[in-house]
């Protein structure tokens, strides 16, 4: 490994950066654990089974934001997958030359736009649009389904946040799917075409081959959606409540942290409770990213012959 003394010295001189990175990550986890310990130790399991935010009386339960994070992330990942697959197919299969370059640049552009820009657009344009054209009709005609049972009052709801985050997530998921889809060896494509398959039949077969990769992309997308803050605060409505209805204002974990952490120091347990909620989200995002990444790596090793 080290072919000379110089190489060993070089290796050692590069170490401080890695030690710093490792140290920061360890410090990070230690801070999270020690800060959340107090509230978990005090409230035990009730912290995660009740929905209360009453710092004046020191009563807490973070079930509502946790569910809110889960529901908005599910909506956004579902939307992102539905939009990403056609976009990926278009860029890889149907578009060529200049137009393909332009479209993939646009996807890249969309992926890098700061989330605050998505937030201001979602709050001012998307929320009223969804309220008038999606939520109100759904409530009027399908109101007997519990998911649509409440009247959308402000247009700010879990549903709006899910759609807004889903739009911002689409470029990321698209780039993951394109990357995998391109790796499918040409021989599968040739085999499909040689037996006279139409483009539709070929794409269907190729998509079924890349199903694990799409699932992994969805997991990575979920991890990103769960941590999204700016768009969530602007569109989720910020109310602590647990209801089956998607059109009711709610909270996500990141939204409750964004709006309550600033004053949390005034109360005995509030800060620690927010740390516990953050810990749950962090555990979920780390787990999903590792699982998603290792799934992608395994799939790529298997598909490339």
């Amino acid at each position, binding site marked *: 490994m080290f072919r000379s003394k110089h190489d060993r010295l070089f290796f050692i001189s590069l170490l401080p*950066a890695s030690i710093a*990175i490792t140290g920061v990550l360890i410090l990070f986890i230690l801070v999270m654990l020690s800060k959340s310990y107090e509230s978990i130790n005090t409230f035990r399991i009730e912290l995660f089974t009740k929905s209360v935010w009453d710092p004046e009386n020191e009563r807490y339960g973070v079930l509502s934001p946790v569910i809110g994070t889960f529901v908005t992330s599910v909506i956004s990942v579902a939307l992102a997958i539905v939009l990403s697959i056609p976009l990926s197919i278009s860029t890889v299969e149907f578009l060529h030359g200049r137009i393909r370059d332009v479209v993939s640049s646009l996807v890249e552009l969309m992926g890098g736009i700061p989330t605050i820009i998505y937030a201001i657009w979602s709050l001012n344009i998307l929320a009223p649009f969804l309220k008038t054209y999606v939520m109100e009709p759904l409530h009027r005609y399908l109101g007997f389904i519990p998911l649509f049972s409440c009247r959308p009052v402000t247009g700010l709801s879990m549903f709006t946040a899910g759609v807004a985050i889903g739009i911002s997530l689409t470029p990321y998921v698209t780039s993951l799917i394109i990357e995998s889809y391109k790796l499918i060896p040409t021989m599968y494509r040739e085999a499909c075409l040689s037996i006279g398959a139409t483009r539709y039949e070929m794409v269907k077969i190729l998509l079924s081959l890349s199903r694990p990769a799409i699932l992994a992309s969805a997991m990575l997308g979920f991890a990103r959606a*769960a941590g999204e803050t700016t768009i969530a605060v602007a569109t989720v409505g910020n109310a602590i409540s647990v209801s089956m209805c998607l059109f009711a204002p709610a909270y996500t974990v990141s939204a409750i942290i964004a709006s309550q952490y600033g004053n949390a120091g005034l109360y005995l347990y509030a800060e620690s409770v927010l740390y516990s909620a953050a810990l749950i989200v962090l555990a979920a995002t780390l787990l999903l990213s590792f699982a998603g990444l290792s799934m992608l790596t395994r799939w790529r090793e298997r598909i490339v012959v």
Partner: protein
Amino acid sequence: MSRWRYLKDRIFVGAVLLTSILTLAPLFHMIATIVVNGAQVLAIYGLRFFTETPPPPISGAGGGIAPALVGSILVTLLSLPLSVSLALLAAILSTEFPRNPISRLADTFSRSFASIPTIIVSMVVYTVVVVPMGSFSALAGAVALSLISLPYAYTAFSTALRSIPHTYREAAYAVGMNRLQTVARVFIPIVKRAVVVGILITFARAMGETAALLFTAGRYRAGVSLDIRAATDAVPLMIFDFITTPFKVYHEIAWGATLVLLLIYLAIFIAVKTAVREVRL
């Protein structure tokens, strides 16, 4: 080919292309809305928009985003040296010594920062930096930004270093260079442009970040501050605060600031695109 299969193929291709256009529609609508709303505000406020502080909420029109603009640039520039140097050293380590357990650990850890929600970074930096220092500060904001932009810089640098063909390494060794000389005299010059592109991407990422600054940079809007130990402001943070207030003048300023942010981002994006295209030639 049967008629039905032909038809199905046609419908499929049409539907896929249509959905793709629909997927990109929000991007165009977003840019159009921001340009229309923002340009109006900039036209009314004029150049003062870049030199004045935000007005009190119930005053008439007027004022600007100077504290946020200067703060954003200050905090982002402060964060760059930290994230870029750490990322570059870690990238060199993991490409030069890929099988060493320490470099593998550095690789995994550098990447795993990307999956930490930025709001959590903000909380932890608040606890570790802001509380001991006793106040919000540009420095704390820069620390938070460098943590969230580290994985972007690392990915850019390690992809660039890994893309160098093996023959260059062999050639360098053949003339008797050791690893340090190979990296410093052969590899870095080859990837110089890619490194610049990586820095630009990192800059754009850090400049647009909101959540990481929520509890770190502070919200000092009464004047322009260049003291890194004092609280400052940032453009995304100011927009975030202003769109959640009920005041009309704040909404106007938020639209104008969003246009400024969008233009900065577009400029960086175009710069990156032209640089990358030239590399390919």
